[in-house]
């Protein structure tokens, strides 16, 4: 006779886990729907979900560690999400073929510049190494920023928060600022906003013109790859320099 199949799942932790995951998705989807309806950039669903979940955890006296542990599944989906970003990278490979040297060099310099500035300012004014790592990685797309933060011992929640902030600044003020400093070419605006304000900025400027969107997404994905390549070396050396 066959042995009965024993499924080794802790029912007590399994049920709240599903409930918390569904609640998180529900909250996020409601805010995503709200933004879709209103088309207001600052009604960012990620930011609003965080702002809504924090008081709920405090009200139900649920420690963050337990919430994070129960929703581990969502955090684990970060990895396949990063892999999926290979598709837009593939789509833009052909468009950078004839100018990849200029674009590559420009974006490498841009990435080094922003890491050095952010790391230095944070070290001088806040003086907490893990926050310096987080702020150095805030210009790139969230899944890659969080993965790199985990690798370089930064603080993922500060990275997530700073990434949203950088995205909102670029999305809300980027185009007017670029017009103000007389950067009016669609390609230049797209590249700048993709580099500084990743997907959030790019989604916003895609409405201005097709070229804005194409150069924005090209820039955001190339910058994320460059950041992944240079940040471990750069951040470790900056850390040695300051300590």
């Amino acid at each position, binding site marked *: 006779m066959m042995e009965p199949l024993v499924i080794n799942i802790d029912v007590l932790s399994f049920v709240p886990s599903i409930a918390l995951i569904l609640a998180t998705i529900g909250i996020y989807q409601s805010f995503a729907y709200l933004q879709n309806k209103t088309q207001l950039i600052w009604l960012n669903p990620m930011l609003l979900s965080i702002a809504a*979940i924090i008081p709920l955890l405090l009200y139900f006296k649920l420690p963050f560690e337990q919430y994070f542990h129960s929703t581990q599944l969502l955090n684990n989906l*970060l990895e396949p999400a990063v892999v999926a*970003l290979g598709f837009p990278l593939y789509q833009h490979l052909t468009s950078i073929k004839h100018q990849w040297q200029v674009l590559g060099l420009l974006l490498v310099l841009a990435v080094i510049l922003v890491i050095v*500035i952010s790391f230095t300012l944070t070290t001088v004014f806040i003086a907490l190494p893990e926050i310096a790592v987080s702020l150095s990685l805030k210009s790139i797309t969230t899944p890659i920023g969080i993965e790199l933060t985990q*690798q370089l011992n930064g603080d993922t929640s*500060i990275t997530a928060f700073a990434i949203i902030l950088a995205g909102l600044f670029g999305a809300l003020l980027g185009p007017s*600022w670029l017009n103000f400093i007389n950067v009016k070419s669609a390609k230049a605006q797209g*590249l700048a906003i993709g580099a500084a304000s990743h997907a959030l900025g790019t989604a916003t400027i895609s409405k201005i013109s097709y070229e804005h969107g194409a150069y924005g997404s090209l820039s955001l994905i190339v910058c994320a790859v460059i950041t*992944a390549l240079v940040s471990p070396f750069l951040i470790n050396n900056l850390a040695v320099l300051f300590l």
Partner: protein
Amino acid sequence: MVKNAFYSTTIIAACLALGKFIAAYLGGLPASLYGMLIFTSVLHFQLVNPKKIAASISWIIQHMGVCFVPAGVGIINHYQLIKDHGFALVAIVFISTFTLLSFVGLTYQHLVINKDNCNN
């Protein structure tokens, strides 16, 4: 539709598994980034049909935001940091974002204008 979603999931899982393997042996990048570069390569060398996966990928990219919420909620443990350094934190993000915007925008526009002048 379901078939294509299954096809996309399988390919992403395979790229990620290979990425984990490479990361374990070589180190350097996170496994997921190796996976992303492998995914780009298999598309570039036409080992995978991009038309079959396009819809699933855009669905993933559109909805991936929810995956970052738990990590973001971690800011709850930083009450003291926000209280002490909240302003500096926002100011640093502001300054570095606008420096980056200006650097990329001005440099690229300069290059484009110079190139156009050479062509004329």
